[in-house]
């Protein structure tokens, strides 16, 4: 294991206690809502905050071990960090920003300049190497921030909400670009984000943190298919229910019955995709279906479709086309029937 961290730290009123490992070349995304303590984790890894207990070890080098009194200051850690709004030094040119770390670690002006120029070229920004950061676009600044973090050949790369300062269009390009550079990077990467799309697109593995605790760990596909908390389910656009399975039916905690695709027994989570939910004015009949009465609790535009929040026996989210919504006359408080095919309902052990 390249990075081995168990971080216990008090963040205001929130006790944070999170452990994870990251292998060489692996990208781990720490995903969580604002205020979940995930940025604190990154600051601890960088040495900008110090844990109350636990340990941080990188390739056998102990960065933090409060019990043993070990606390390596940030400037002595073999790390590179990309900050949320890049924090390029405004008084230094692009290439001097990239050279900063090499100079600070004792390289000559010449040698550092050479390496920095190479990195700027790698980011396709050689034309901008002598300009000040304020004349760079958001995407360009992000690339220079990444180059600055990587130029010192760190063993651990830390990314704090690397794409959140960018507008939606730039984000797509920069995300693809970042993915490409992360694939080339041999060290361990820890990425902190509240955007599930960034996490899914960039990470090999996700750690979902809520209220200072890990609530789920897994590959992006695993987490998105089988969310274990409401937060994750909402992030990936699934309705999450919990209950007890007996064969192909699941009795939900509130007593409602759900027919599912695969048989199992014991406590399970049930996940339903909004697109799999059909809405009707009158009760539908026919093939093996789940059918529940519901009232409309909210309608919000979601891309090309409308996302409808439903209250009732089974709380659900449904995606419908604007035409269908008009036909159904969906307004707040409308009574509808929601139906989901059993084959569209995933159940997995809780």
């Amino acid at each position: 294991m390249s990075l081995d961290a168990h971080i216990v730290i008090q963040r205001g009123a929130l006790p944070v206690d999170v452990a994870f490992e990251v292998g060489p070349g692996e990208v781990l995304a720490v995903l969580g809502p604002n205020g979940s303590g995930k940025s604190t984790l990154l600051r601890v890894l960088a040495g900008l905050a110090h844990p109350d207990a636990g340990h941080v070890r990188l390739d056998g080098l102990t960065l933090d071990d409060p019990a043993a009194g070990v606390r390596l200051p940030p400037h002595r850690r073999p790390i590179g960090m990309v900050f949320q709004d890049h924090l390029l030094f405004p008084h230094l040119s692009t290439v001097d920003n990239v050279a900063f770390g090499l100079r600070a670690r004792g390289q000559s002006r010449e040698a550092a300049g050479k390496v920095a120029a190479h990195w700027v070229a790698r980011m396709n920004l050689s034309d901008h190497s002598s300009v000040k950061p304020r004349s760079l676009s958001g995407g360009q600044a992000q690339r220079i921030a990444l180059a600055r973090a990587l130029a010192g050949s760190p063993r651990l790369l830390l990314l704090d909400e690397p794409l959140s300062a960018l507008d939606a269009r730039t984000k797509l390009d920069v995300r693809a670009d970042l993915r490409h550079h992360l694939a080339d990077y041999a060290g361990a990467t820890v990425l902190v984000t509240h955007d599930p799309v960034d996490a899914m697109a960039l990470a090999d593995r996700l750690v979902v943190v809520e209220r200072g605790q890990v609530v789920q760990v897994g590959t992006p596909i695993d987490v998105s298919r089988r969310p274990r908390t409401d937060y994750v389910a909402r992030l990936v656009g699934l309705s999450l229910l919990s209950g007890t399975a007996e064969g192909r039916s699941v009795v939900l905690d509130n007593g409602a019955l759900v027919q599912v695709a695969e048989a199992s027994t014991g406590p399970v989570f049930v996940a339903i995709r909004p697109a799999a939910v059909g809405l009707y004015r009158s009760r539908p009949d026919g093939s093996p279906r789940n059918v529940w009465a519901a009232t409309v609790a909210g309608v919000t535009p979601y891309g090309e479709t409308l996302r409808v929040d439903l209250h009732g026996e089974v709380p659900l989210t449904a995606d419908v086309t604007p035409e269908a919504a008009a036909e159904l006359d969906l307004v707040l408080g409308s009574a509808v029937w929601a139906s989901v095919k059993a084959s569209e309902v995933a159940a997995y052990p809780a």
Partner: protein
Amino acid sequence: MAVAFLVLPLIALLIRAPWSSLGSLLSTPEVRDALRLSVICASLATLISLVVGIPLAWVLARTQIRGRGLLRALVTVPLVLPPVVGGVALLLAAGRRGVLGEPLYNATGISFPFTTTAVVIAETFVAMPFLIISVEGALRAADRRYEDAAATLGADRVTTFRRVTLPLVAPGVAAGAVLCWARALGEFGATITFAGSFPGTTRTMPLQVYLALESDPEAAIALSLVLLAVSILTLGLLRDRWLMRT
């Protein structure tokens, strides 16, 4: 009313200025000596203030040491203290019979009062708080996350301060230095008390103005004009280069 009250005396100064003989009045040896001495002493005082004031400003802005509030209060005392009291205090501390001055004189034979060094000390005492307050404000306003970024790039505290913090607060430091220099240049009370008024060694411009007022009023007005010009220039520098930009 208030504006008239503040501006009228300056206008009077301009009206009564002996414009035709200005050149000859300002080129007498005494005036040239005073001018040269003033510029040198004020510059030295500013230099000393920069060297010892910036670290203190950093301590005030960035550390959590105990007694920081008291420290800041002490720094601001010379701002509100009548300069002549400052001069008396300096005399009691560094005079030949002073708390520090006496042992120093007995040990080395060095004595500060009534020397050019005394002028620099008096000016530094009075003017340094302007620099400290200005730099401290700039340090507080600066985004500390740049220092975090520098630390993650391998820069220790000293390197971070030199290559990141200082350039970021450079406008504040420059503004503070200009204020400090202007204050030092106009220093009168502490200087005359601690350093006296000896031509060529301690008689700076303001002292020369005061003295000339009795013997040669026209020369006093001419010198005052020079000091006024410096003040206006200072204001202009601060306004155009720093205040307007922010």
